[in-house]
């Protein structure tokens, strides 16, 4: 019996011929990530470890200021400074302060810090995003991250793998986000707990890299340990533009052992929406728009959909128009690089002219931190990844998750709107 892609990568990093699901291994890591929140706790843990004065490799740690940035208040500033001081003390090569980075999961691939076949752990659950480029990547808490900081390895239980095969062609105004929402809806929010998701099929072969970011990002929304794509020529070229570091491209064996295989045919798939209050409460847009669902806020951004392709889609829909008068639209380009590219292309001007506010890159609005927090009784449609009670602010607010196109269409009408209908109406 052969090995899945995840098993191949983990075996090599554990120095083993092969590994089996359920096996506990020690794996060497190629990169350890933390943001100012997870780092603050991890640094405290590391300070308390006897004999742990130095990180294992100053070039293999990435520290990104992104959650409460620019600092929301003095307490947030304290955590940001704590991480910055640690980065200076340990001479960390990849420290990204405000204005030089952005959202960690958007930044790291762009900075060439993610390559196929690597093992990456991060103090953030959306670390699984890097599976988009063929890496094994998983989120952990701060104590595990502290251990990885000093040992350069982590203990892992090898996950069984769920194979998902997508076939068909995405229709007009239907995107990777819709496909992933549909997938989370099908699996359920604990449907892939302790499992790896391995994405396959002609639909994803045709998908841009940014769409793969979106899909790998939300593997955790089904509870998965990691979500992974095979690095094809497109992914390898994308990585090589950003790093000269050598890497090993692994492939699942033809006779790999999958716990189960799911086939999803995307022909005829309509835009999808996750309704309150779980990411697996997914419905086709025609279900949701049967009644008028008015919204107070539209949010475009996050590690799920803060990429240049996402902003271009929104700008195309909003170009020359005005957003509805009863709502606000908040746009967060995912990184400084995305922000600059969107500025250069005129995308930001288009969005601002339509009535959107364009914020600095960061995670704040997505997790109810700051820069777009919802109040009692408010409702948002958002390109983010979670809609749990109180996720974006008040426990009495509601969040609907959708694609950038659906969010942009909704921004024009003030209610949740099918972008295809809008297009047909020539709005």
């Amino acid at each position, binding site marked *: 019996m052969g090995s899945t892609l995840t098993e191949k990568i983990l075996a090599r990093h554990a120095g083993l011929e092969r590994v089996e699901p359920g096996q506990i291994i020690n794996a060497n890591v190629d990169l350890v990530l933390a943001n100012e929140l997870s780092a603050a706790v991890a640094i405290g843990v590391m300070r*308390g470890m006897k004999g742990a004065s130095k990180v294992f490799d100053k070039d293999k740690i990435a520290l990104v200021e992104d959650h409460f940035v620019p600092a929301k208040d003095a*307490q947030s500033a304290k955590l940001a400074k704590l991480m910055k001081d640690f980065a200076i003390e340990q001479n960390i090569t990849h420290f990204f302060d405000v204005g030089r980075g952005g959202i960690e999961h958007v930044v790291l691939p762009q900075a060439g810090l993610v390559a196929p076949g690597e093992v990456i752990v991060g*103090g953030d659950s959306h670390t699984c995003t890097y599976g988009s480029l063929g890496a094994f990547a998983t989120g952990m*808490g701060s104590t595990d991250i502290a251990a990885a900081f000093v*040992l350069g390895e982590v203990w892992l239980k090898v996950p069984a793998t769920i194979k998902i095969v997508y076939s068909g062609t995405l229709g007009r105004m239907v995107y990777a986000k819709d496909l992933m929402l549909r997938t989370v809806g099908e699996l359920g929010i604990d449907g892939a707990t302790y499992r790896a998701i391995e994405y396959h099929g002609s639909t994803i072969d045709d998908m841009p890299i940014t769409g793969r970011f979106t899909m790998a990002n939300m593997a955790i929304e089904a509870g998965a340990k990691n979500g992974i794509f095979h690095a094809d020529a497109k992914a390898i070229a994308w990585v090589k533009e950003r790093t000269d570091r050598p890497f090993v491209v692994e492939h699942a064996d033809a006779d790999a052992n999958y716990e189960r295989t799911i086939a999803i045919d995307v022909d005829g798939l309509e835009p999808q929406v996750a309704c309150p209050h779980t990411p697996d409460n997914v419905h086709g847009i025609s279900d949701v728009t049967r009644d008028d669902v008015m919204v107070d806020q539209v949010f475009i951004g996050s590690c799920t959909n803060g990429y240049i392709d996402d902003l271009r889609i929104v700008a195309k829909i909003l170009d020359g128009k005005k957003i509805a008068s009863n709502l606000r639209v908040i746009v967060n380009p995912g990184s400084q690089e995305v922000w600059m590219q969107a500025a250069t292309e005129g995308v930001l001007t288009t969005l601002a002219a339509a009535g959107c506010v364009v914020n600095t890159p960061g995670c704040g609005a997505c997790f109810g931190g700051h820069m777009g927090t919802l109040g009692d009784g408010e409702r948002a449609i958002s390109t983010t990844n979670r809609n749990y009670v109180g996720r974006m602010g008040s426990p009495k607010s509601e969040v609907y998750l959708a694609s950038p196109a659906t969010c942009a269409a909704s921004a024009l009408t003030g209610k949740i709107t099918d972008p295809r209908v809008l297009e047909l109406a020539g709005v």
Partner: protein
Amino acid sequence: MEAKLHGNVHKYGKNVDTDVIIPGKYCNIIDPAELGKHALEGLDPEYTAKMKAGDIIVADTNFGCGSSREVAPIAIKGSGTSAVIAKSFARIFYRNALNIGLPIFESPEAVDGIENGDEIELEPATGVIRNLTKGTQYKAAEFPPFMQQLVAAGGLVPYVERRLAEAK
């Protein structure tokens, strides 16, 4: 770890996510006692007012799903809650709870056999759960052998310290 834990039960449903365990706006706090004041605030704003030190949270499947924030189990522990019993736990929360020393017990039978307000007693070493109100007893799923060793060694931090000492 204490030999026995004892308290009254506060029972909740499935998919208790980390956003309701400790809402995002408190994630810039690192002091456990301060975090403890907001434990479960997004799910049950009365929790910290009504619970007594030693009380136990009982929940359905997938407890702790969502973000990797270690402040979630830290907040529960910081509130004085002595343990969490659930039908199942989300992966990252499970690791975090063990790493920070919050006792967790996985037992679908116990969850079904325990009601809100019941008085229960727990033995972390054996996984025995006694419902003193109803006079019933359950046994939680054992931790995998590697995790038992990790717990026996005092958690991940002593394990790392030993590894560092061996490397010298």
